[in-house]
């Protein structure tokens, strides 16, 4: 029982720090790309910015409009956050440093990652606000469209690894000597990243939020601490999806040429570095791209990504059996 507690405590650190690191990265990336002095220089070169942000939100009034469906409205942020935290359970930082190495790890991760969207939908619906409702419905439409490419892109990895345990997948990559992204899953990786960006609702797929259209969409009616919970969850989600992508495609906690005996020491660092690199790409995309339109997003998913991922599965299978 103690080891469970230790692991959960470790997870607490990882989840919160991950969210904070990614917040800093996003904000500093933004001000760097936008030539904005604010978060780049103010207050310890902008590093205590997230703390100030959290303090600001914590002491703000939590306004719950009269029209809303109170219980659903109040607990929708909790739903989103809990589902984000649950994802941290399966990502291995090293062969032993994993909260729960499930046999069906990949399945668990994919299933949980889409649960958050249901929280978003309930938030939008319970707000009794037209903008929120549209935001929530868009979020659900996005979930439907991008869940499939996300799942199907992973099938290629599973074919190559012959297991669904995340630790197993990393071990297979160590055995191969190269990460899967080099070993034939480049298309799968790209599809996964695009679909994951859509799942995270980040630019260019941020229609459920779309502040210039829907005035923050499903979050319109949220204020104070409940808004903060959405905000933190967004970055947790970003962190953990990047970590899962690193694990599945980039070799997780291991880099080629480093001795596998010491993997318990350098594992977390390696994984975090890979995660941060992926996160930085997402930051760069966010601050340089406009937003798609909802129908364009659906087209991209159904007409390009899903057929491409199906073909990717077939090609991977032929490679696996044939060679």
């Amino acid at each position, binding site marked *: 029982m103690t080891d469970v507690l230790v692991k959960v405590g470790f997870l607490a650190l990882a989840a919160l720090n991950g969210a904070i690191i990614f917040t800093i990265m996003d904000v500093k990336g933004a001000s760097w790309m936008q030539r904005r002095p604010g978060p780049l220089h103010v207050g310890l070169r902008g590093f205590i910015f997230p703390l100030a942000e959290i303090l600001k939100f914590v002491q703000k009034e939590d306004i719950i409009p009269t*029209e809303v469906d109170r219980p659903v409205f109040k607990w929708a942020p909790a739903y989103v956050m809990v589902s984000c935290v649950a994802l941290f359970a399966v990502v291995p930082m090293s062969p032993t440093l994993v909260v729960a190495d499930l046999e069906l790890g990949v399945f668990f991760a994919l299933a949980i990652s889409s649960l958050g969207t249901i929280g978003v939908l309930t938030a939008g619906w319970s707000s009794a606000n037209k903008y929120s409702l549209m935001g929530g419905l868009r979020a659900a439409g996005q979930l439907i*469209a991008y869940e*499939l490419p996300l799942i199907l892109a992973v099938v290629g990895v599973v074919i190559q690894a012959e297991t669904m345990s995340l630790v197993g997948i990393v071990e297979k990559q160590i055995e191969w000597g190269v990460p899967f992204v080099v070993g034939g899953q480049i298309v799968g990786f790209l599809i996964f990243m695009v679909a994951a960006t859509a799942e995270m609702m980040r630019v260019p797929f941020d229609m459920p939020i779309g502040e210039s259209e829907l005035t923050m969409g499903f979050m*319109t009616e949220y204020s104070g601490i409940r808004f903060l919970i959405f905000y933190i969850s967004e970055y947790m989600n970003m962190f953990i999806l990047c970590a899962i992508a690193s694990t599945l495609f980039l070799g997780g906690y291991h880099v080629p040429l480093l001795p596998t005996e010491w993997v318990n020491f350098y594992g977390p660092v390696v994984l975090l570095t890979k995660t941060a690199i992926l996160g930085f790409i997402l930051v760069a995309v966010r601050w340089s791209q406009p937003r798609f339109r909802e129908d364009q997003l*659906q087209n991209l998913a*159904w007409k390009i990504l899903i057929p491409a991922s199906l073909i990717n*599965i077939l090609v991977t299978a032929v490679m696996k059996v044939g060679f």
Partner: protein
Amino acid sequence: MISYFQDYVTIAAVLGFGLFLVVLLLGVASVLRPNKPYAEKLQTYECGVDPVGSGWSQTYVRYYIFGLLFVIFDVEAVFIFPWAINLEKLGYFGLIEMFVFIFILLIGLIYAIRKDVLKWE
């Protein structure tokens, strides 16, 4: 079997931790934040004017057909995963089976695209 359950106990603990995190944040905030509600503040936001009608109005959920397709594909995905793990053992037989399977799926998708049902308007 024991470890199997152990894993899920851990997952439950993780979920519990997530819930604890939320409750902690809400608790801290409830101590710190002011609370001065009044009718105008609690009005639904609609760009600064009184809302027209109810926020619960009916809308046409565009992705009705998308939803149906999604369910089909999602179920197929569940079949694909076990096949993917055992592909080495199944060999060419499994490969051809899956070709047929995915081919049928693709045909369905192409049919849907040609029928213009995947049009979000």
